Every structure is written in C-alpha cells, then in structure tokens.
C-alpha cells in the first residue's frame, strides 16, 4: 500500500498537511513506509527527518518516484529505505544538507556559525558582507529560540535548497518540542487560538521568559530583517499558522496539528536588502 502525498506548496493548508504525514507514518503497520510524491520542499524533508528520528526511529521511508529518493539521499536523510530506487544525482551544491543542532547554547552557536560558513555561504556567492552577518545572526536566533522555548531534547533540525535562478534560498527549521501556542497559553493563562499565540510571540518585547529577564526581541528582529529583505517568513506550530511576506501578515488555523514548531524562510540573495536605512534609500 502506498500513500499519495499532496503537492507541498508554501500555502498554509499545504504546510498543515505535514500533520497528516506524521500521523500516517506513525499509524503505518510495516517498518517501511512507501509514499507517492513527485516533489518535496525542504521543509518537508526537514520535518520528515526530525519527526521519524524522534517518534518512529525504526521506520524507513521510500518514495515511488526515484528522483525524490535521490533528493532525500543527497540531503542526508537517515531513514531512506535501502531498497529505494535512485535517479541521476542532482547538483549537490543546490542542496543545504540536513543538520541537527542540540546541546548547550555556546556549543550550538559555534556549530551554527561553522555550518553557515562551510555549508551555506560557499554556495551562495551573491551573499556578501553585512547580509552574511545578518543571515547568520537570524538563523542562530531561530535555533536558539527552538532550543530555549521548544525544549526538545532531540534538538532542532534544518535543511534547505538554493534556487540560484530565482535569486533566493529556502531554509526550514523544525523541532518537535512544546510548540509556541502551548508555551504562550501556559504563560499568559489565556484561551487564545493557536495562530493568535504565534502572532503574539512574534511581536517586539513579547516573551514567555520571566518578566525579571530581559527578553523578547529575537522573532521581532527576524521579521524585521525579512520584511526589508523581501523574503518570506512562516511559522506553523500545533494548529496555528503565521506568515509574512512584504509586510503582509497571513494567519490561519490548520486542520491538522503539527507537533512542535516549523519555521520556514525564503531569503533573497541581495546584499542591499539587509538594512532598513539602505532599503529606505534605494528601494
């Protein structure tokens, strides 16, 4: 028996299908799950790797389409079935391989810097100078948020893809931790909907850290960076979805719950698009 996956786009209802994918893998009777899809976005690969490793570590997955198996193999997917049919290799330099970060914050910060310098920037020559600095700092902030607030012992997993002809790259981060809505509701003691909770968490100064601690800027600065960059910012957590593109906010309630938190970004390779001042003057 095979399961036909939907086409995974960047629309919220499509991202919400990850919840169906996760429950299908858990419910599958055999150790090898066969899925049907002609194309996987990086956020699906990121989710699959982390979810299967954490909740169904003995399961293996293969796709009917050999090119999808090939993409997973080159991404470093650790649960690819040994008998999965492979296709002609893709250009490896287009793939940001799977990476999992776990541990104390200083160790992980070193890992993140080493990873962006060795695995990310050498393949994106268009990213230079200050944009490199801002991308590194913002990617670190996502990892740090996941480790601090998600508290997932399994850490946070990332992977992505370069689209040089389109002038951007997409990168996703997934942790199967507490989830933003759960954390925010517990903290605020309010019966807010999941998408409201995520929206709240992205605002300047909002944090679930104790009031005596200085906190609450990470996601706000990330949003600010992506607004200037013209990229896309998406968070799906539990049944909540929050997205921003060119300053336009899109919120939705997902029909299917996603364990933990998925953050998906599209970042434009344009060194001018990193600073509010430069942006105001030149664009």
């Amino acid at each position, binding site marked *: 028996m095979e399961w036909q996956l939907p086409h995974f786009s960047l629309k919220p209802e499509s991202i919400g299908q990850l919840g169906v994918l996760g429950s299908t893998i858990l419910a599958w009777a055999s150790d090898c799950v066969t899925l049907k899809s002609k194309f996987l976005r990086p956020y699906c690969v990121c989710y699959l790797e982390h979810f299967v490793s954490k909740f169904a570590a003995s399961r293996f997955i293969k796709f009917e389409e050999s090119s999808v198996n090939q993409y997973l193999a080159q991404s470093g997917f650790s649960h690819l079935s040994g008998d999965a049919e492979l296709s002609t290799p893709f250009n490896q330099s287009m793939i940001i391989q799977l990476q999992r970060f776990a541990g104390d914050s200083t160790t992980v910060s070193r890992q993140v810097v080493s990873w962006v310098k060795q695995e990310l920037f050498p393949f994106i020559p268009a990213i230079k100078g200050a944009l490199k600095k801002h991308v590194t700092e913002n990617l670190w902030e996502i990892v740090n948020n996941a480790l601090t607030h998600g508290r997932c012992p399994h850490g946070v997993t990332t992977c992505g893809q370069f689209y040089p002809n389109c002038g951007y790259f997409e990168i996703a981060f997934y942790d199967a931790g507490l989830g933003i809505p759960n954390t925010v509701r517990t903290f605020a003691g309010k019966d807010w909907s999941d998408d*409201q909770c995520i*929206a709240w968490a992205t*605002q300047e*100064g909002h944090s679930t850290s104790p009031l005596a601690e*200085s*906190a609450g800027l*990470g996601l706000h*600065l990330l949003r600010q960076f992506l607004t200037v960059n013209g990229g896309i910012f998406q968070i799906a957590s539990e049944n909540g979805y929050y997205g921003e593109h060119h300053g336009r906010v899109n919120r939705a309630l997902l029909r299917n719950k996603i364990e933990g938190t998925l953050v998906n970004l599209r970042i434009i390779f344009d060194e001018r698009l990193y600073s509010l*001042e430069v942006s105001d003057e030149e664009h």
Partner: protein
Amino acid sequence: MKSISVVETMGTRELLSPDLGHRLYELIRDALRKNDSVHVDFATYEFLSSSFLNRSLGQISMDFDLDQERFDRRIQIVGLEKDDIDDVRLCVQNAVMRKKLLDKKIDLNQYYSTHLAH
C-alpha cells in the same frame, strides 16, 4: 574607569549565545559595583545576537535600573556597527519597559490580554 574588551574576554568574535551574554553581564555588573562607569569595547567582533544582548546589556539595564540616558552615562559602548548600536538601543528600551512592569507588579495575565497582536 574600568574597561572591558568583549572579544578578548569572551575568547571569541561570535557573540551569539545567551550564556556568553551572561558572562559579559557578570563582568559589567562587577565593574559597575566598583565604578561609576564602564567602557565596553566590541572591537573585532563578527556576530552579535539579540539573545546575547538581552542577557548582557538588557539585563544590566534592568538590574541597575538604567533608562537610556543613565545607561549611556554609565556604559560607554564602542566598536559596534550602526545596525548593532540600533539593536542595543532597542534592547535597552525593551528592558526598561519590562522593568517598569516588574516594578508596578503588573498582573501579567491582564497586561498580555490587552497586548495581543490582531
């Protein structure tokens, strides 16, 4: 005036982790207990995160009750790029706001129920 070379004392140009931020907090805290002001030099740093700033300068602002004016008078920061100076100011403003809420013993449930983004 006590002077702290951040990169030298942290042993890295990557000022990202909140744990490192806490180490800088301790250095500044000890210096401010003995001196009116402290000189904090970020020269040669490569990366600076909001989690590092919150745990260091933001926490100092809260614990020493320093609004922006008092912060600038007691902590002389040099060696930062302009974008990061802006982030330091944002961090201090945010810390000042949190300190005010803390001092007023604001009911967090009530506060956050009126500060929900729509």
